């Protein structure tokens, strides 16, 4: 059900905004929009399928602790 909602929402978003950009021949805009739309779609599908995603803030914490040397 969740997956279906995600697919419908992203299809609507892609059709409404992507098609408008395509008609206006704004190729660069369409490429950036498509890239962001694609990343958001893949991540949303993974969340809908309850796939555990890597947590960005944990990675940042590890990076900072590595640089600072664990003195925090």
């Amino acid at each position, binding site marked *: 059900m969740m997956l279906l909602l995600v697919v419908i929402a992203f299809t609507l*978003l892609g059709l409404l*905004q992507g098609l*408008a*950009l395509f008609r*206006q021949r*704004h190729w*660069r*805009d369409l490429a*950036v*929009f498509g890239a*962001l*739309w694609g*990343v*958001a779609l893949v*991540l*949303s599908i993974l*969340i809908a399928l309850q796939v555990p*995603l890597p*947590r*960005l*803030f944990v990675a*940042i*914490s590890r990076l*900072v*602790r590595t640089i*600072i040397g664990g003195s*925090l």
Partner: protein
Amino acid sequence: MLVILLLFGGVAAHAAWHGIEVIGRTAELLVIAAILTVILTTSLLFPEFNMDNLRPALTTPLPELLRAGHGVAAFPFAETVVFLFVFPYLNRKQKLRRSVSLGLALAALVLLLVSLRNIVVLGPTLRNITYPSFQAARQISIAEIITRLEVLVAINFLSMGFIKLAVLLYASTIGTAQAFKLHSYKHLILPFMILMVILAITGFSNLPENIEFAQEIWPVYAPFFQVGIPLLTLAVAAIRKLPKRGASE
């Protein structure tokens, strides 16, 4: 949770879609309401004030004081760096310096008032409380009639969070649009909003993790973006001798 995030993000996206003027005009109303709430809750908490909670004064060791000062600089004051994306769109740029100084001074004054109020009301228990302003407002009880005013603090959190989210969404989309030389930033708003919601869902697994990140990692991590990148941009602009004459507008 997801529904709340989507609704909140949707409203912020709507504000960002209509541009900085709409965000600014909304902020005018909401900030005044927030300041009035702070004044009201502080006034009603007068009976709960215990000035002994301020003692011992000026005994904090210098390294700890500097660390705390840096923490406050990183969050919230240096976060105002995001307004650098907004400044080019101002109508009256000659008033910029005065407006920014006034805004920062007012924010510092209000935050100082809130911090002092929370210390004199809550005392040493403050260390163990996640949302001190919320907890302080819960102490308000005037003749057992005027109570439960913590809802005003909760509304403040939400309204100010909305302004912050709208400005961040606007700045991130307009920054991306400028970087890729796009015709408009507007079609990036919804994908960015969805990515923000995904980050909010997957970011932290619990509140202590969030607080640990905010207190220990953020003051080290954020200055790169708050000071490092703006200074680097300034250096590059100076080397390239920007803005070139006649191209500044």
